[in-house]
């Protein structure tokens, strides 16, 4: 049985929250160490765990995809593995020559030629001059820069620079490769070459640790995954599970991070409801809540159709209901109630209109009502969705009431299938694929 290439045991790393605390603790820590004392491994006021008790092990040839939203600790982990940061707790053991592919092409000296920069970057990656000489032609051929290798790098296009940087890093063939977001660079054919080279390294036994926000890249390369949040490992194991967890966390975060949503609800609705002061309702468009004062809606909620309880997340294809309370102050004829939905990337991706759905309301007399729209066959792909309420009268071309971003919903990734193909796609439709041969290429007959 091969010895593990990478073993990370209970690694933690803390940082100061502000420059002031970093200066204070920097001086205190310096004093402690100069007096021969060990690191203070406790969390002090003004500090936070950027990495908290992280453990995993990788065998030679394993490829680990590390995912997490910004600030989750994945770059800190990579920097500890690269020896840039020292851990505050725990231990990292790496067996084999380590290569780091972090910001390929950055750090080139612009005044020097491509040839000169190959020698410098090769040395920075730990190659000896003879190793660089032996691999020089291979690097130039991989980067496809034969004609430009004696040109100053400052005259290179950005694509040429990153191609050269990537070529140097991958041709050095390390036993452990740390990659930060730069798995493939350049145009489409060069990116294909990058992926093929990474796969070759894997087959040859290189252990790869890839930090990326791109599920497609992680899925293409990695056989294992690590999902981090708040410095901790939340999900580890099959790469598909990790991508699902990352995607769901992104959806949750986009709901939390929407400032207009927080502004629109619930504080405004509460003041309207409690005070009964319809004069507080803005009468101009451009406000999160506005209207004529004839109708006021409150307490928008997404609920479970069966149980009736308020929910913020639904499973993939799980039915949900949208509910809100309505107070009719002045009688409304031919009322139409409409809920419009946005996704993170697009506006108005769905509309549930009471008239379109066959629910005609000829007259609404003053009083309090609850409106409920049940969506039985929802086909939304995983992601975050935002809702807006509009109340109109068929004969009047303006809103009697409009409430933007009154509620949000997260559709989670399914456990039984892997929806990875396009983060911008919104609707899932089942389809049957067939692959019928209509003539094979000649090379396949031989």
């Amino acid at each position, binding site marked *: 049985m091969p*010895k593990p290439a990478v073993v990370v045991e209970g690694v933690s790393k803390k940082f100061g929250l502000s420059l002031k605390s970093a200066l204070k603790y920097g001086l205190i820590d310096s004093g402690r160490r100069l007096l021969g004392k060990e690191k203070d491994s406790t969390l002090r006021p003004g500090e936070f765990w950027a990495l908290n008790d992280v453990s995993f092990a990788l065998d030679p040839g394993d490829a680990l995809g590390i995912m997490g939203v910004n600030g989750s600790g994945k770059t800190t982990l990579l920097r500890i593995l690269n020896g*840039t940061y020292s851990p505050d707790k725990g231990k990292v053991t790496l067996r084999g020559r380590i290569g780091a592919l972090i910001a390929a092409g950055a750090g080139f000296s612009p*005044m020097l030629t491509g040839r000169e920069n190959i020698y410098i970057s090769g040395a920075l990656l730990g190659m000896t001059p003879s190793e660089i000489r032996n691999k020089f032609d291979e690097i130039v051929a991989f980067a496809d820069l034969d004609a430009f290798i004696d040109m100053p790098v400052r005259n290179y296009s950005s694509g040429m620079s990153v191609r050269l940087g990537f070529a140097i890093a991958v041709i050095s063939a390390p036993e452990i490769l740390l990659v930060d977001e730069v798995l493939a660079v350049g145009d489409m054919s060069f990116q294909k070459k990058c992926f093929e080279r990474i796969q070759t390294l894997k087959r040859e036994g290189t252990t790869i640790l890839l930090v990326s926000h791109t599920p497609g890249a992680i899925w293409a390369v990695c056989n294992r995954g690590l999902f981090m949040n708040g410095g901790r490992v939340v999900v580890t194991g099959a790469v598909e599970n990790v991508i699902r967890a990352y995607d769901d966390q992104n959806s949750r975060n986009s709901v939390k991070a929407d400032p207009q949503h927080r502004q629109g609800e619930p504080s405004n609705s509460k003041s309207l409801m409690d005070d009964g002061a319809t004069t507080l309702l803005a009468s101009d468009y451009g406000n999160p809540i506005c209207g004529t004062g004839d109708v006021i809606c409150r307490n928008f909620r997404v609920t479970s159709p069966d149980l009736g309880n308020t929910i913020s997340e639904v499973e993939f294809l799980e039915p949900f209901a949208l509910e809100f309370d309505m107070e009719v102050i002045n009688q409304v004829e031919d009322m139409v109630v409409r809920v419009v939905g946005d996704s993170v990337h697009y506006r108005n991706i769905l509309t549930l209109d009471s008239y379109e759905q066959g629910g005609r309301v000829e007259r609404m007399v003053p009083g309090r009502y609850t409106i409920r729209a049940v969506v039985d066959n929802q086909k939304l792909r995983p992601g975050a969705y935002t809702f807006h309420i509009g109340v109109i009268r068929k004969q009047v071309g303006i809103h009697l009431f409009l409430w933007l971003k009154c509620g949000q919903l997260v559709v989670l990734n399914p456990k039984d299938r892997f929806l990875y193909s396009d983060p911008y796609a919104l609707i899932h439709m089942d389809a049957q694929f067939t692959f019928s041969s209509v003539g094979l290429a000649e090379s396949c007959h031989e």
Partner: protein
Amino acid sequence: MRYMDSDGVPVTIYQPNETQGGIIWGLKRAATDIILSRHVIARLFWRDFIAQFRQKLLGYFWALLSPLLGVVSFLFLFFIGVLHPGEGEIPYTVYVMVGSTIWGCLPGAMGAVSGGLQAQADLIMRTRIPKVALALSSLAGLFYGILISMVTITIIFVATGVRPTWWLFVYPLLALPMVLLGTSIGLVLSVLGSIARDLTPMVTQVLGLVMYVTPVIYVHSTIQNAFVDVLISWNPMTYLVDVPRSLICLGHADNTSSFLTVAMGTVMLVAIGLRIFYLLEDLVAERL
């Protein structure tokens, strides 16, 4: 910690408090780090050297000219009669040129080493080069400057009609204690200066003042004030400037034993500087 296991595979271990050890441990670790990264140090030196002179009008002539420009202000003050450095055996132009070039090794080494890590922040974050190698690789430029200033000093000797002694050939060795002193201060500042950013400018200012209690631009024997005279005598840097200058210009010097004692002290200071550097080096990357 890095070692080869029984299968001949390099093993790297990172854990807290790895850098606990004595002064000798620090020296051994530095030697290992420098040997391991000798190719990188050489390449970085070569890169900086080439890039420095490319696309410049005067090209390599800059290297010869810059030591001379450093003493222009003192020579100007001397020749218009404002500066009275006192009478000595050595012509003032040669005296101030040699003295300030040797003194320049102190702030030069200190600045190069202390700023070495900050200047190479990108490499610290992206690569696995030992930080001590990055700090010390900046010194390569200083050694190159020392060699160039030998040529400049020779030109000054010829221009003033003074015949230099054979000691000029070992000028780099004579200036080495000053470089070591600057390196030791620079090593401490490179780590502490990244925590408290105003520390390096403060020490640079202090060094500027210390130069005036060192006989760099004046002759020690002409000082009348008893307190300043004692201060200059007790200032170890007096011997690091005076003895090499006298040897180069006159072929003999007083206080050579004091020079050797202080030189030994600078070796000890580098060892202590390295120890402090290794104790605190991991705090640097967190603050870049």
